[in-house]
Protein backbone atom coordinates (compact mmCIF):
# COMPACT_ATOMS: atom_id res chain seq x y z
CA UNK A 1 0.00 0.00 0.00
CA UNK A 2 1.24 3.42 -0.95
CA UNK A 3 1.75 5.84 1.90
CA UNK A 4 1.76 9.60 1.66
CA UNK A 5 5.43 9.50 2.61
CA UNK A 6 6.12 7.85 -0.72
CA UNK A 7 4.24 10.16 -3.06
CA UNK A 8 6.39 11.38 -5.87
CA UNK A 9 7.04 14.63 -7.67
CA UNK A 10 4.63 13.69 -10.40
CA UNK A 11 1.75 13.55 -7.95
CA UNK A 12 2.65 17.05 -6.80
CA UNK A 13 2.52 18.35 -10.35
CA UNK A 14 -0.84 16.70 -10.88
CA UNK A 15 -2.19 18.19 -7.65
CA UNK A 16 -0.93 21.60 -8.64
CA UNK A 17 -2.69 21.24 -11.98
CA UNK A 18 -5.92 20.23 -10.25
CA UNK A 19 -5.49 23.19 -7.93
CA UNK A 20 -5.08 25.50 -10.92
CA UNK A 21 -8.12 24.22 -12.76
CA UNK A 22 -10.19 24.11 -9.59
CA UNK A 23 -9.22 27.61 -8.58
CA UNK A 24 -9.98 28.77 -12.12
CA UNK A 25 -13.47 27.26 -11.89
CA UNK A 26 -13.97 28.74 -8.43
CA UNK A 27 -12.87 32.17 -9.61
CA UNK A 28 -15.47 32.13 -12.36
CA UNK A 29 -18.18 30.95 -9.97
CA UNK A 30 -17.39 33.60 -7.36
CA UNK A 31 -17.02 36.28 -10.00
CA UNK A 32 -20.53 35.44 -11.25
CA UNK A 33 -21.91 35.53 -7.72
CA UNK A 34 -20.31 38.86 -6.86
CA UNK A 35 -20.42 40.39 -10.31
CA UNK A 36 -16.69 41.08 -10.26
CA UNK A 37 -13.80 40.18 -12.49
CA UNK A 38 -11.16 38.39 -10.50
CA UNK A 39 -7.93 36.51 -11.03
CA UNK A 40 -6.09 34.05 -8.90
CA UNK A 41 -2.46 33.18 -8.48
CA UNK A 42 -0.86 29.83 -9.22
CA UNK A 43 -1.41 27.58 -6.26
CA UNK A 44 1.44 26.09 -4.36
CA UNK A 45 1.36 22.58 -3.01
CA UNK A 46 2.86 22.22 0.44
CA UNK A 47 3.96 18.90 1.86
CA UNK A 48 4.68 19.09 5.56
CA UNK A 49 4.90 17.00 8.72
CA UNK A 50 1.51 16.45 10.38
CA UNK A 51 2.81 18.04 13.60
CA UNK A 52 3.43 21.33 11.76
CA UNK A 53 0.00 21.57 10.16
CA UNK A 54 -1.44 23.55 13.10
CA UNK A 55 0.89 26.46 12.42
CA UNK A 56 1.12 26.08 8.65
CA UNK A 57 -1.08 29.01 7.63
CA UNK A 58 -0.27 31.47 10.41
CA UNK A 59 -0.03 31.55 14.19
CA UNK A 60 -1.53 28.51 15.91
CA UNK A 61 -3.82 30.68 18.02
CA UNK A 62 -4.93 32.94 15.17
CA UNK A 63 -8.69 32.73 14.66
CA UNK A 64 -9.55 31.41 11.21
CA UNK A 65 -12.56 30.08 9.33
CA UNK A 66 -12.69 26.45 8.26
CA UNK A 67 -15.31 24.98 5.96
CA UNK A 68 -15.47 21.22 5.82
CA UNK A 69 -17.28 18.97 3.39
CA UNK A 70 -17.55 15.24 3.08
CA UNK A 71 -16.63 13.68 -0.26
CA UNK A 72 -18.34 10.55 -1.54
CA UNK A 73 -19.23 8.35 -4.54
CA UNK A 74 -16.13 6.87 -6.27
CA UNK A 75 -13.85 8.15 -3.54
CA UNK A 76 -14.55 8.67 0.16
CA UNK A 77 -13.06 11.29 2.38
CA UNK A 78 -13.40 14.94 3.17
CA UNK A 79 -12.02 18.29 2.18
CA UNK A 80 -11.47 21.58 3.88
CA UNK A 81 -11.23 25.17 2.74
CA UNK A 82 -9.57 27.61 5.12
CA UNK A 83 -9.61 31.40 5.14
CA UNK A 84 -8.15 33.98 7.51
CA UNK A 85 -10.65 36.29 9.26
CA UNK A 86 -9.83 39.22 7.02
CA UNK A 87 -10.67 37.18 3.92
CA UNK A 88 -13.85 35.84 5.47
CA UNK A 89 -15.08 39.30 6.50
CA UNK A 90 -14.20 40.62 3.08
CA UNK A 91 -16.26 37.97 1.30
CA UNK A 92 -19.21 38.27 3.68
CA UNK A 93 -19.27 42.06 3.42
CA UNK A 94 -19.28 41.82 -0.34
CA UNK A 95 -22.06 39.23 -0.41
CA UNK A 96 -24.12 41.15 2.14
CA UNK A 97 -23.39 44.47 0.40
CA UNK A 98 -22.02 45.94 3.60
CA UNK A 99 -19.35 48.52 4.27
CA UNK A 100 -15.99 46.83 3.48
CA UNK A 101 -14.64 47.72 6.94
CA UNK A 102 -17.50 46.07 8.85
CA UNK A 103 -15.98 43.45 11.16
CA UNK A 104 -18.57 42.52 13.79
CA UNK A 105 -18.71 38.82 14.77
CA UNK A 106 -20.44 36.65 12.17
CA UNK A 107 -24.18 36.08 12.60
CA UNK A 108 -26.12 33.07 11.29
CA UNK A 109 -26.68 34.68 7.89
CA UNK A 110 -22.97 35.47 7.59
CA UNK A 111 -22.06 31.88 8.42
CA UNK A 112 -24.48 30.67 5.75
CA UNK A 113 -22.80 32.97 3.24
CA UNK A 114 -19.40 31.61 4.25
CA UNK A 115 -20.67 28.05 3.81
CA UNK A 116 -21.95 28.95 0.36
CA UNK A 117 -18.57 30.36 -0.66
CA UNK A 118 -16.89 27.25 0.71
CA UNK A 119 -19.36 25.15 -1.18
CA UNK A 120 -18.61 26.90 -4.47
CA UNK A 121 -14.86 26.77 -4.01
CA UNK A 122 -14.87 23.15 -2.90
CA UNK A 123 -17.28 22.19 -5.67
CA UNK A 124 -15.07 23.86 -8.29
CA UNK A 125 -12.04 22.07 -6.97
CA UNK A 126 -13.80 18.72 -6.89
CA UNK A 127 -15.14 19.10 -10.41
CA UNK A 128 -11.57 19.71 -11.60
CA UNK A 129 -10.44 16.56 -9.80
CA UNK A 130 -13.42 14.69 -11.15
CA UNK A 131 -12.70 15.88 -14.71
CA UNK A 132 -9.07 14.79 -14.61
CA UNK A 133 -9.69 11.43 -13.00
CA UNK A 134 -13.04 10.50 -14.59
CA UNK A 135 -14.17 9.60 -11.08
CA UNK A 136 -17.54 10.67 -9.75
CA UNK A 137 -16.87 12.79 -6.69
CA UNK A 138 -19.76 14.39 -4.82
CA UNK A 139 -19.49 16.90 -1.97
CA UNK A 140 -21.75 16.79 1.10
CA UNK A 141 -23.30 19.88 2.65
CA UNK A 142 -20.67 22.17 4.18
CA UNK A 143 -19.96 22.69 7.88
CA UNK A 144 -18.24 25.75 9.24
CA UNK A 145 -16.09 26.47 12.29
CA UNK A 146 -14.55 29.74 13.46
CA UNK A 147 -11.79 28.97 15.94
CA UNK A 148 -8.05 28.78 16.61
CA UNK A 149 -6.08 27.63 13.55
CA UNK A 150 -4.44 24.76 15.41
CA UNK A 151 -7.82 23.44 16.61
CA UNK A 152 -9.39 23.54 13.13
CA UNK A 153 -6.27 22.09 11.52
CA UNK A 154 -6.19 19.28 14.05
CA UNK A 155 -9.01 17.72 12.04
CA UNK A 156 -6.96 17.20 8.86
CA UNK A 157 -3.88 16.50 11.00
CA UNK A 158 -5.70 13.51 12.51
CA UNK A 159 -6.86 12.35 9.07
CA UNK A 160 -3.32 12.42 7.70
CA UNK A 161 -1.90 11.13 10.95
CA UNK A 162 -3.75 7.88 10.38
CA UNK A 163 -1.76 7.13 7.20
CA UNK A 164 1.59 8.52 8.07
CA UNK A 165 3.60 11.51 9.10
CA UNK A 166 2.94 14.07 6.37
CA UNK A 167 0.06 16.23 5.17
CA UNK A 168 -0.66 17.86 1.82
CA UNK A 169 -2.04 21.37 1.47
CA UNK A 170 -2.84 23.42 -1.62
CA UNK A 171 -2.41 27.15 -1.16
CA UNK A 172 -4.42 29.48 -3.37
CA UNK A 173 -4.51 33.21 -3.58
CA UNK A 174 -7.15 35.22 -5.38
CA UNK A 175 -6.50 38.70 -6.72
CA UNK A 176 -6.03 41.70 -4.41
CA UNK A 177 -9.33 43.14 -5.60
CA UNK A 178 -11.16 40.28 -3.99
CA UNK A 179 -8.74 39.92 -1.10
CA UNK A 180 -9.27 36.23 -0.42
CA UNK A 181 -6.43 33.99 0.57
CA UNK A 182 -7.37 30.39 0.95
CA UNK A 183 -6.03 26.93 1.51
CA UNK A 184 -7.47 23.62 0.39
CA UNK A 185 -6.87 20.35 2.08
CA UNK A 186 -8.11 17.18 0.44
CA UNK A 187 -8.34 14.17 2.76
CA UNK A 188 -9.19 10.96 0.97
CA UNK A 189 -9.75 7.84 3.03
CA UNK A 190 -6.85 5.45 2.80
CA UNK A 191 -8.17 3.22 -0.01
CA UNK A 192 -9.28 6.24 -2.05
CA UNK A 193 -5.70 7.43 -2.48
CA UNK A 194 -4.84 4.58 -4.72
CA UNK A 195 -7.95 5.19 -6.82
CA UNK A 196 -7.06 8.84 -7.34
CA UNK A 197 -3.44 8.13 -8.17
CA UNK A 198 -4.29 5.29 -10.51
CA UNK A 199 -6.90 7.41 -12.28
CA UNK A 200 -4.35 10.22 -12.63
CA UNK A 201 -1.86 7.83 -14.18
CA UNK A 202 0.66 8.21 -11.38
CA UNK A 203 2.60 5.00 -11.00
CA UNK A 204 2.34 3.57 -7.51
Amino acid sequence: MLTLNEVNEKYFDVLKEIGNIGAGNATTAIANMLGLRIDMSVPEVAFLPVEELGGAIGAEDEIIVGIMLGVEADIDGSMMFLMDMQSAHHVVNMLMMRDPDYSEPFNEMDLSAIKEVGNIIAGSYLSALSGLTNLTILPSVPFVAVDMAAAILSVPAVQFGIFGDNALMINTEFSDDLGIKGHFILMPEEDSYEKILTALGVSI
Partner: protein
Amino acid sequence: MGQMIKVGMADLKICKAPDALTTIGLGSCIGIAIYDPSTKISGLAHIMLPDSTAIRNNSNIAKFADTGIQKLYDDMIKAGANKARMVAKIAGGAKMFEMPGASTSINVGDRNAEASRQKLKQLGIKIIAEDCGLNYGRTVELYSETGEYYIKAVGKELKII
Protein backbone atom coordinates in the same frame (compact mmCIF):
# COMPACT_ATOMS: atom_id res chain seq x y z
CA MET B 1 7.32 32.78 37.48
CA GLY B 2 9.43 30.37 35.48
CA GLN B 3 9.54 29.61 31.80
CA MET B 4 6.55 28.70 29.66
CA ILE B 5 7.56 25.57 27.73
CA LYS B 6 5.69 24.80 24.51
CA VAL B 7 4.41 21.34 23.73
CA GLY B 8 3.59 20.81 20.04
CA MET B 9 1.03 18.55 18.39
CA ALA B 10 1.91 14.88 18.92
CA ASP B 11 4.52 15.94 21.44
CA LEU B 12 5.13 15.64 25.20
CA LYS B 13 7.33 17.41 27.75
CA ILE B 14 7.94 17.51 31.48
CA CYS B 15 9.07 20.36 33.73
CA LYS B 16 9.81 21.27 37.34
CA ALA B 17 8.68 24.27 39.38
CA PRO B 18 8.58 27.15 38.67
CA ASP B 19 8.21 26.36 34.97
CA ALA B 20 4.93 25.82 33.14
CA LEU B 21 3.86 23.83 30.09
CA THR B 22 1.49 24.90 27.32
CA THR B 23 -0.05 23.54 24.15
CA ILE B 24 -1.99 25.72 21.73
CA GLY B 25 -5.29 24.99 20.01
CA LEU B 26 -6.36 21.51 21.05
CA GLY B 27 -9.18 20.46 18.74
CA SER B 28 -10.08 16.79 18.76
CA CYS B 29 -6.69 16.14 20.37
CA ILE B 30 -6.30 15.76 24.15
CA GLY B 31 -3.94 17.61 26.45
CA ILE B 32 -3.09 15.22 29.29
CA ALA B 33 -1.61 16.99 32.29
CA ILE B 34 0.02 14.86 34.99
CA TYR B 35 1.16 16.48 38.21
CA ASP B 36 2.93 15.29 41.35
CA PRO B 37 2.22 17.79 44.15
CA SER B 38 5.03 16.40 46.35
CA THR B 39 7.86 17.10 43.90
CA LYS B 40 5.99 19.55 41.63
CA ILE B 41 7.21 17.55 38.65
CA SER B 42 4.69 18.10 35.87
CA GLY B 43 4.09 16.64 32.44
CA LEU B 44 1.94 17.51 29.45
CA ALA B 45 1.19 15.32 26.43
CA HIS B 46 -0.72 16.42 23.29
CA ILE B 47 -2.06 13.26 21.71
CA MET B 48 -3.92 13.04 18.37
CA LEU B 49 -5.20 9.47 18.13
CA PRO B 50 -6.46 6.92 20.65
CA ASP B 51 -4.65 3.71 19.81
CA SER B 52 -1.17 3.04 18.40
CA THR B 53 -1.96 -0.62 17.77
CA ALA B 54 -4.71 0.30 15.26
CA ILE B 55 -2.32 2.23 13.01
CA ARG B 56 0.56 1.04 10.87
CA ASN B 57 2.56 4.26 10.87
CA ASN B 58 3.07 4.59 14.60
CA SER B 59 6.72 5.64 14.91
CA ASN B 60 5.92 8.81 16.89
CA ILE B 61 4.75 7.45 20.23
CA ALA B 62 3.63 10.90 21.40
CA LYS B 63 0.89 10.82 18.75
CA PHE B 64 -1.21 8.22 20.57
CA ALA B 65 -3.01 8.11 23.92
CA ASP B 66 -1.73 4.65 24.87
CA THR B 67 1.96 5.12 24.08
CA GLY B 68 2.10 8.89 24.71
CA ILE B 69 0.74 8.70 28.26
CA GLN B 70 3.04 5.75 29.03
CA LYS B 71 6.08 7.76 27.86
CA LEU B 72 4.99 10.83 29.83
CA TYR B 73 4.62 8.68 32.95
CA ASP B 74 8.02 7.01 32.42
CA ASP B 75 9.73 10.39 31.89
CA MET B 76 8.21 11.78 35.07
CA ILE B 77 9.23 8.75 37.14
CA LYS B 78 12.75 9.03 35.71
CA ALA B 79 12.82 12.71 36.74
CA GLY B 80 11.96 11.71 40.32
CA ALA B 81 8.18 12.05 40.46
CA ASN B 82 6.35 10.08 43.13
CA LYS B 83 4.08 7.52 41.51
CA ALA B 84 1.62 7.35 44.41
CA ARG B 85 1.08 11.11 44.42
CA MET B 86 0.49 11.62 40.70
CA VAL B 87 -2.85 13.05 39.57
CA ALA B 88 -4.11 13.91 36.11
CA LYS B 89 -6.27 16.55 34.43
CA ILE B 90 -7.39 16.22 30.84
CA ALA B 91 -8.81 18.70 28.31
CA GLY B 92 -9.73 18.74 24.62
CA GLY B 93 -11.44 16.06 22.57
CA ALA B 94 -13.77 18.51 20.83
CA LYS B 95 -15.88 17.79 17.79
CA MET B 96 -14.84 20.73 15.63
CA PHE B 97 -17.30 20.05 12.80
CA GLU B 98 -20.78 18.66 13.43
CA MET B 99 -20.72 16.32 10.45
CA PRO B 100 -23.43 13.68 10.71
CA GLY B 101 -22.40 10.26 9.52
CA ALA B 102 -18.80 11.38 9.09
CA SER B 103 -16.14 8.73 9.40
CA THR B 104 -15.09 7.93 12.94
CA SER B 105 -11.69 9.50 12.37
CA ILE B 106 -13.27 12.95 11.98
CA ASN B 107 -15.10 12.64 15.28
CA VAL B 108 -12.13 11.15 17.06
CA GLY B 109 -12.37 13.51 20.06
CA ASP B 110 -14.59 11.29 22.22
CA ARG B 111 -12.46 8.23 21.49
CA ASN B 112 -9.30 10.18 22.36
CA ALA B 113 -10.81 11.17 25.72
CA GLU B 114 -11.93 7.62 26.46
CA ALA B 115 -8.55 6.12 25.53
CA SER B 116 -6.81 8.68 27.75
CA ARG B 117 -9.05 7.83 30.72
CA GLN B 118 -8.40 4.13 30.23
CA LYS B 119 -4.63 4.48 30.00
CA LEU B 120 -4.49 6.69 33.10
CA LYS B 121 -6.64 4.18 34.97
CA GLN B 122 -4.31 1.37 33.93
CA LEU B 123 -1.35 3.34 35.30
CA GLY B 124 -3.25 3.99 38.53
CA ILE B 125 -3.32 7.76 38.05
CA LYS B 126 -6.51 9.43 39.21
CA ILE B 127 -8.18 12.03 36.98
CA ILE B 128 -9.16 14.84 39.34
CA ALA B 129 -10.61 17.21 36.72
CA GLU B 130 -11.48 17.29 33.05
CA ASP B 131 -12.85 19.62 30.41
CA CYS B 132 -13.55 17.55 27.32
CA GLY B 133 -15.91 17.45 24.36
CA LEU B 134 -18.18 20.17 22.93
CA ASN B 135 -17.29 21.94 19.70
CA TYR B 136 -14.51 24.44 20.30
CA GLY B 137 -10.72 24.59 20.46
CA ARG B 138 -8.78 24.92 23.71
CA THR B 139 -5.35 26.27 24.62
CA VAL B 140 -4.05 24.82 27.89
CA GLU B 141 -1.37 25.80 30.40
CA LEU B 142 -0.14 23.62 33.26
CA TYR B 143 1.55 25.47 36.15
CA SER B 144 3.92 23.21 38.07
CA GLU B 145 3.99 25.51 41.11
CA THR B 146 0.29 24.92 41.85
CA GLY B 147 -0.86 22.12 39.52
CA GLU B 148 -3.46 24.50 38.10
CA TYR B 149 -4.56 23.74 34.56
CA TYR B 150 -5.68 26.84 32.63
CA ILE B 151 -8.08 26.39 29.73
CA LYS B 152 -8.52 29.19 27.22
CA ALA B 153 -11.08 29.18 24.41
CA VAL B 154 -12.14 31.78 21.86
CA GLY B 155 -14.91 34.04 23.24
CA LYS B 156 -15.02 32.21 26.57
CA GLU B 157 -13.81 33.07 30.05
CA LEU B 158 -10.60 31.56 31.35
CA LYS B 159 -11.32 28.29 33.10
CA ILE B 160 -8.99 26.90 35.78
CA ILE B 161 -9.35 23.26 36.74
